[in-house]
């Protein structure tokens, strides 16, 4: 009875794993087929010859290298600014006292609860008044402060023992020096969480870049892929090749830093 139960557990787990992997397998397999092969019905599980020509063709047809570059600029820009704004603000909320501190923090938290679609339209209006539509400013600046990162860092800063701060003060350090020389070196794990969260969110963000950029040269990897999917709506080998190389960087990152990513996301409880 016990043995039979165990077999059932494995059958279920393996079925689940196949169901999770099948779309990835099918994406890669299709990306290596010719279009004629892909249109065969019922389909062959594997391509007869592994073709990489779809990958080259996708890069040739639309400017994916530009989209990659744009996404990297957006990701690095947002992440660095979030590190800067969040650690400063978190330090102030956790360690400094000034009138209105708790009220401001409460308002920040309330802002975090409002889903993006609610402020999407007015954000567009504000960005067009600033003449930032279709620029990197529109992609980066509105996301350069992140309440959730402030919250995470503040929680962590509060756990650092008071004695360290007292000692640093006696040594004559000011608040900025305490933050950069004492607090941040002790916060690596949380900073990694914030960084991972920023990288994954930026790499996968879609609705925002779709709305605040128009021109081909400003497309990010996701809006570029979606544009390509509309232009080549039936050429699935090409589309699967593009899907493969746009997801690959994050999948590789995930396989390398699995533990940190899972922990970050369990801690954050936020996705997308």
């Amino acid at each position, binding site marked *: 009875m016990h043995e039979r139960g165990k077999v059932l557990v*494995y059958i279920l787990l393996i079925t689940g794993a196949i169901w999770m992997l099948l779309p990835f397998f099918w994406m890669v397999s299709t990306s290596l087929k010719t279009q004629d092969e892909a249109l065969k019905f*019922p389909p062959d599980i594997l391509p007869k010859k592994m073709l990489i020509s779809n990958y080259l063709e996708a890069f040739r047809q639309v400017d994916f290298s530009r989209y990659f570059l744009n996404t990297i600029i957006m990701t690095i820009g947002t992440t660095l600014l979030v590190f*800067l704004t969040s650690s400063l603000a978190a330090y102030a909320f956790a360690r400094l006292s000034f009138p209105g501190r708790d009220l401001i923090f409460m308002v920040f938290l309330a802002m975090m609860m409002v889903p993006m679609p609610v402020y999407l*339209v*007015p*954000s567009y209006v504000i960005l067009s008044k600033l003449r930032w539509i279709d620029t990197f400013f529109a992609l980066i600046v509105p996301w350069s402060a992140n309440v959730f990162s402030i919250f995470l860092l503040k929680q962590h800063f509060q756990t650092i023992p008071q004695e360290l701060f007292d000692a640093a003060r006696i040594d004559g350090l000011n608040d900025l020096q305490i933050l950069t020389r004492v607090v941040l070196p002790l916060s690596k794990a949380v900073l990694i969480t914030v960084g991972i969260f920023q990288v994954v969110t930026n790499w996968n963000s879609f609705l925002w870049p779709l709305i605040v950029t128009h021109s081909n040269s400003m497309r990010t990897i996701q809006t570029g892929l979606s544009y390509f999917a509309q232009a080549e709506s039936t050429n699935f080998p090409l589309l699967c090749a593009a899907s493969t190389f746009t997801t690959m960087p994050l999948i590789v990152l995930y396989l390398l830093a699995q533990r940190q990513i899972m922990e970050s996301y369990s801690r954050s409880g936020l996705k997308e």
Partner: protein
Amino acid sequence: MRRKSNLTGYLFILPALLVIAVFRFLPIVQAIRMSFYRWGIAGPLQYIGLKNFSRLFIDPKFYQSLGNTFWYVILVVPITLVLSILFAQLLNKSIKGRSIYRTIYYLPAVTSIVAISVVWKWIFDADRGILNAIFNFIGIEGLKWFNDPRGLFELLLSPAGLALKGFFAGPSLALCALIIMSIWHNVGYCIIIVLAGLQNIPEQYYEAARIDGAGSNKIFWSITIPLLSPTIFFLFITQSIIAFNTFTPVYVMTQPPGGPLGSTSLLIFYLYEQSFRLWNLGYANAIAFVVFMIVFGLAQIQKKFFEKRVHYA
């Protein structure tokens, strides 16, 4: 000294405060204001009171999107949660290769929705898709998936002579395809969270129950589920909010977007269409306001409903 420390505090929060004031607070206030105006991309603004809101009540497309969103959320969230509890339970047993399964299950959570939408669109393809090939292989006739606007209940119950229409026809087959994709995408993340919750339950509880002669069914319902309820509650709220905000798969997978016959148009997609295709910015903000109220209200109801039953460890 005191004043100097105040100044440092304000200086430290200034960068974050500026960004959040201009790009969160201001747009949210503006969103409320805009919903009282006829606000196009060009032409004069015109104050129209509550007309944007009253228009919602007579807009059949709004009702349709609301109904679609209802079916979408009510199917995606519970199915995702039940599956994740099942799989987390399996992974919590002493099995070989647990970390490999975890890695695999979590994989969809780090892949972009645009890319997986492209792939699932291909999987669901009515003529060449692998899913219909599998259906044919096991002797079932292939379905039209994204080309089929007919409701699920309508299809299931029409042989019994019941002709269901509109909302009661249920989610269209196209929307069902979207639902399947979303469950696939969300379940891995939920499994990891539930698994963490399971591992927080002290082993003594299980031992004590076993000594008292409780069977595994009894243990599951009287120990696991009550002690897991804070985790389930948390996932229920966050997953519902995510589901209400779904946009990308509708935009990428359906053809024309939101179709066939508007049967996959979810609220946020409709908001997008009204604002960035038709440029009815004021009306779009009325829709945004409804979305906000639903999400907010849902969080409140769930809180009230669960507070009594949720066991806070």
